[in-house]
């Protein structure tokens, strides 16, 4: 079965220990981090690498980080080649070195055994702030990366076991809400240590060589698995184009095209995007890997565990340097993990929809969220955070079921958690008036897309800065297999700001100040539907109406179902048949 001379039983055991190690690293991050983005929202990832460095295990964490940790780790190892010592600890965030966006900060700990570098334990997490002119990093007015936050190239914060307090202090001096950032650094370091401890024990128990042989075998097995899936797809070239909506930069909509070429058990994915723009939606190469890999995983639908062997048969070309999906410094980029990543994922998914139509599922709602900042009078300190509850969109429907409600956005694929509203109100001086599903927001289809959510906030006792990011405010989540929605407006996102009884609808990325007594309601898109909505069983439509997920108007327009009585939900079957046959 396996090429390596490893005992198949030991192999299963080693795999179990690696998964347990990763789980314990994740748990440490989740339980100890300060920022709600980490600990309530799970916007972090942990991974193990061998010395090559090749990723030997990725957690089931967030897909945004799926691909970018791989080039980032390689870049960091290359930078310090020949200077990596036991007791070092490396910090990094810059996208020129394979990072995703500046606010995602990575910690790398080399693991030595008997004087030799054997492994790396790595974690990455979304901090609440990274310095720069706009709290929480998302600056829609940035025309260069320098206006988005502090750039950290690979940097040793421990040198042979000795912490470099001066260096760390300089970094923290440049960040808002220092206490939270410092706590989050500690959490990242704690997680790396937990990982290193477990890997060291594993080598003590089974011997270094046995462990390394097992890991090689695991990488080979993952490779073989992906090759088998690719080989099932007919050879050929398939392409998908998704439209990236203009979210306020004024350059108009853009096309992003992915071309997938299958040759035997190899897959090449080529991305074509317009030239980079002076707006924060450019994606550097590392981040684009994540977008491409997510589209690939939507096709492969693999269960865990995940390692880099999966991608050995996959080559990528993100297009020429200086384009939207292969940006060059100093392109501004902060929004990249959601926009354009989700559109890039859609393009790859569409290409695979042609290649393997039997495995297609619909697109998920894109992230369309906000960050908040202000002064917390209760403790006389500044607060700043990304609000994950504000980006929870609907999942796409699949060929077997309706999309899940409220597990998006697409770039996170259910890995986030939005945090308890009482804990958010405890941590920040805000009042959350609404966190709910939304009528008619799920894309229409034989299987309906999941509902998006609405998150409505009011500052408690002082002005609050609210910064929006993302897209999906004009173009709804793409359906699959012939799904289409007649009512588009409730299916896309928007920000509604209500001041003195007047409601303003905002569909661009903006910075707004909200006063006590005023409210901002952020609506997130639903997921795409699957199949012809006129084929959806009438009883299911009635059930959705009963549950307030579809309105009477939505039932008629989207599903061709005519309900004559709101109370009894009586269906006019003749009228329904006429509509559906038309």
């Amino acid at each position, binding site marked *: 079965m396996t090429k390596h001379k490893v005992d198949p039983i030991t192999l299963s055991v080693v795999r179990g220990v690696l998964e347990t190690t990763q789980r314990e690293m994740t748990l*440490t991050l989740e339980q100890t981090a300060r920022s709600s983005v980490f*600990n309530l929202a799970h916007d972090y990832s942990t991974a193990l690498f061998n010395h090559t460095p090749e990723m030997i295990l990725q957690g089931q964490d967030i897909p945004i980080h799926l691909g970018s940790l791989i080039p980032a780790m390689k870049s960091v190892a290359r930078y310090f080649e020949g200077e990596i010592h036991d007791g070092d600890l490396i910090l990094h965030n810059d996208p020129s070195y394979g990072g995703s966006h500046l606010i995602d900060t990575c910690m790398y700990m080399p693991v030595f055994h008997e004087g030799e570098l054997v492994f790396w334990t790595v974690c990455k997490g979304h901090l609440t702030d990274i310095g720069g002119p706009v709290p929480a990093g998302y600056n829609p007015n940035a025309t260069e990366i320098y206006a988005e936050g502090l750039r950290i190239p690979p940097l040793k914060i421990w040198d042979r076991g000795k912490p470099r307090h001066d260096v760390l202090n300089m970094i923290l001096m440049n960040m808002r809400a220092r206490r939270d950032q410092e706590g989050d650094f500690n959490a990242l370091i704690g997680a790396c240590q937990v990982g290193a401890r477990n890997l060291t024990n594993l080598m003590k128990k089974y011997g270094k060589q046995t462990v390394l042989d097992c890991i090689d075998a695991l990488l080979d097995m993952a490779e073989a698995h992906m090759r088998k899936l690719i080989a099932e797809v007919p050879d050929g070239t398939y392409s998908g184009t998704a439209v990236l909506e203009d979210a306020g930069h004024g350059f108009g909509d853009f096309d992003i095209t992915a071309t997938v070429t299958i040759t035997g058990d190899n897959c090449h994915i080529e991305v074509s995007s317009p030239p980079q723009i002076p707006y924060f939606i450019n994606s550097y190469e590392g981040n684009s890997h994540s977008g491409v890999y997510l589209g690939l995983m939507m096709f492969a639908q693999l*269960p865990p565990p995940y390692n880099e062997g999966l991608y050995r048969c996959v080559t990528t070309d993100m297009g020429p340097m200086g384009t939207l999906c292969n940006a060059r410094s100093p392109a501004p980029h902060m929004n990249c993990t959601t926009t354009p990543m989700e559109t890039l994922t859609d393009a790859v998914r569409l290409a695979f929809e042609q290649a393997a139509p039997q495995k297609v*599922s619909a697109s998920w709602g894109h992230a369309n969220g906000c960050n908040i900042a202000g002064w917390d009078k209760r403790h006389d300190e500044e607060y700043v955070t990304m609000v994950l509850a504000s980006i929870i969109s609907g999942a796409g429907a699949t060929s*077997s079921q309706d999309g899940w409600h409220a597990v998006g956005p697409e770039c996170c694929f259910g890995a986030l958690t*939005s945090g*308890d509203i*009482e804990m958010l109100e405890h941590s920040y001086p805000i009042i959350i008036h609404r966190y709910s*599903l939304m009528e008619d927001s799920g894309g229409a289809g034989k299987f309906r897309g999941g509902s998006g959510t609405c998150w409505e906030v009011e500052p408690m006792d002082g002005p609050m800065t609210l910064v929006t990011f993302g897209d999906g405010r004009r173009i709804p989540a793409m359906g699959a297999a012939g799904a289409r929605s007649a009512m588009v407006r409730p299916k896309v996102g928007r920000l509604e700001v209500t001041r003195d009884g007047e409601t303003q609808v905002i569909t661009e990325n903006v910075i707004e100040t909200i006063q006590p007594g005023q409210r901002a309601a952020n609506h997130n898109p639903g997921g795409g539907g699957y199949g012809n909505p006129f084929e959806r069983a009438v009883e299911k439509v009635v059930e959705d109406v009963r549950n307030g997920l579809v309105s009477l108007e939505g039932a008629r327009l989207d599903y061709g179902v005519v309900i004559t009585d709101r109370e009894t939900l009586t269906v006019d079957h003749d009228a329904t048949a006429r509509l559906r046959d038309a």
Partner: protein
Amino acid sequence: MHNQYRLGIDAGGTFTDFILADRKGDVRIFKALSTPNDPTQAIRNGLAVIEEETGLSPTEIISNADLCINGTTVGLNALITHNGAKTGLIATRGHEDSIEIRLGHKEDGYRYDPDYPPATMLVPRYLRRGVSERVLSNGTVHTPLNEDDVRDACSHFLREGVSSVAISFVWSVLRPEHELRAAEIVREMMPDVRLTVGSQLYPQVREYTRTSTAVVNAYLAPILQRYVEKVDAYFRELGARHPVRYFQSNGGLALGRVVSDQSVYAINSGPASAPQAALWLGEPWGMRDIITVDMGGTSFDITLTRDGRANVSKDIDFLRYRIGIPMIQVETLGAGGGSIGWIDSMGLMQMGPQSAGSEPGPACYGRGGEKPTTTDANLVLGYLNPEGLVGGRLPLDAAKAREAIRTHLADPLGISVEKAAYGMFTIVNNNMVNAIRRVSVERGYDPRDFVLNCAGGATAAHITALAREMGTRQILISKLASGLCAFGQILSDVKYNYMAPVAARLEGADSAARLDALFDGLESRGRSDLRDDGFTDDQISIRRSLDMRYVGQVHECTVGIDAFEVTEEALERLKAAFHARHEELYTYSEPHSAVEVVNVESAITGAVDKPGRMTLPPGRGAATARIDTRQMIFSPDGRAQATPVYDGALLGAGDNISGPAVIQEVTTTIVIEPGWTARLDPNGAYLITTDDSASAA
């Protein structure tokens, strides 16, 4: 023990276990088939079995017994099959959907699975009604309760035929008035429904957890109420002189009316009595750090006690529903005797979680099962008696076991059947060891510091291998191991949990005084409830826990302490305990950072007298109990060696058996690997130690 007998009844999925103990230490186990449709029928049948075997009539026993019942499956089955009451939820307007949004998360392990379904809603959206009201995070009222909204919700529920209602408002824990007023209105308009009020059931911060806990409770309450009323009435008829007590997932007993009001406490109580039994078993040796593992047909349950106290979990997902109340931490793994060995899409051998169950069961049962299971591996390894389990009542077919292993595992992997069988054994053991880390390492404990205690019928075949993998040096196996949980229930005390939110930084005399007053309030309520139940002050004990964290953190770590007056100086003690716990759990602490408390809880226990201990006569040497020699495999190369087999019933106190060996008890088979020695204690438990630890001692 007020009475001559103590009778424990544990209604499991297949069997209902009966444990009858008397004052002198005589303990006997009886079994009857469970009758899920009429739970009292199984009790009737069990009492008939007892009468047949002991000559004691039901009236004779019941009129002279303390009664402890575990009805766990009644609530559990309703939750698994989604067969609870038609329930309505009244929530703060704008927050009706929190139980369906579920924090926006899809469970790990299913990230790219297109077929994994969302959790079934216990209260569908059309039965969730928002009302206008709002309390803020500082406890002030932002919007007063609109009573007409509550009335409208009730009218809607009446039209829909709702039989149970949950009320849960945002920040009701800081100011419960709105919930309480809404409850009055519901009682007026719907006098016949069961009512669950979030701030009363689970007064802790976190809206989603509280609402979800209230919903699960409301969903199960009518079911539990019917059950309790029926059981209580049945025993009253038989002349019971004391009220029946019911076992809860917090590890303690409770009166029937408490369980039917707080039914959520009853749902995972099955394995929750294991820690109690473990401590009782370990007491003669002074053992207080014990991990108990219980392997049944399909699952493997793990519990842990540290310094004489069981791990407690709060705020967990159980069967995909968030439940806040403190429960004995039970880590469950799909690994049992029936767990199936298979080769995954990557080409790796895996064990479970799929199980052959009892029908068709393992291949060696010869009932049509063709997949290789843990039991088949144990048979091929020579551990199990080929003549059959349960004293020969269940014969085993070794040829079928070998065939299943060959076809599905050995041939595809290109290894021998013996190697594959040992591999299955190794993988299932390692799965268990990884799961044991969840109650130990993830709680900051080193499993090597613990005694491993064996419960359930299938566990003992794995126990020395597990101990070896974990690095544990001492193992306890009671002769009652197969019914250990039922036994644990009759040893358990009455226990209630009282909770309150705090949100205070641990600084200054004011915050100390607030905490002290809070604990005082909770504990005086607790004492009075237990006094009403007939307990005296000297039987009542208190254990406090505080959910603490560094300011800015969002997850708390729970620190347990004994009751003492909370003064400003005492705050330092609390903080020190927190720093130490944080470091134990996460490798670091921040002694200079501010610490805050979010929630507090007092567990109030009313001690119940314990039954006496078994006394075995001294043995006449292990050789007299040796009944057979079998070929057994103890190494990865699959080579067999001749291994002695002992009959446990012929062993006496003080007898020693060195591995490799197997001891056959009627309901369990103990495998002793080379390097381990078992010694039978007069109290009916085997203590098994590694030879190096024995020589060190």
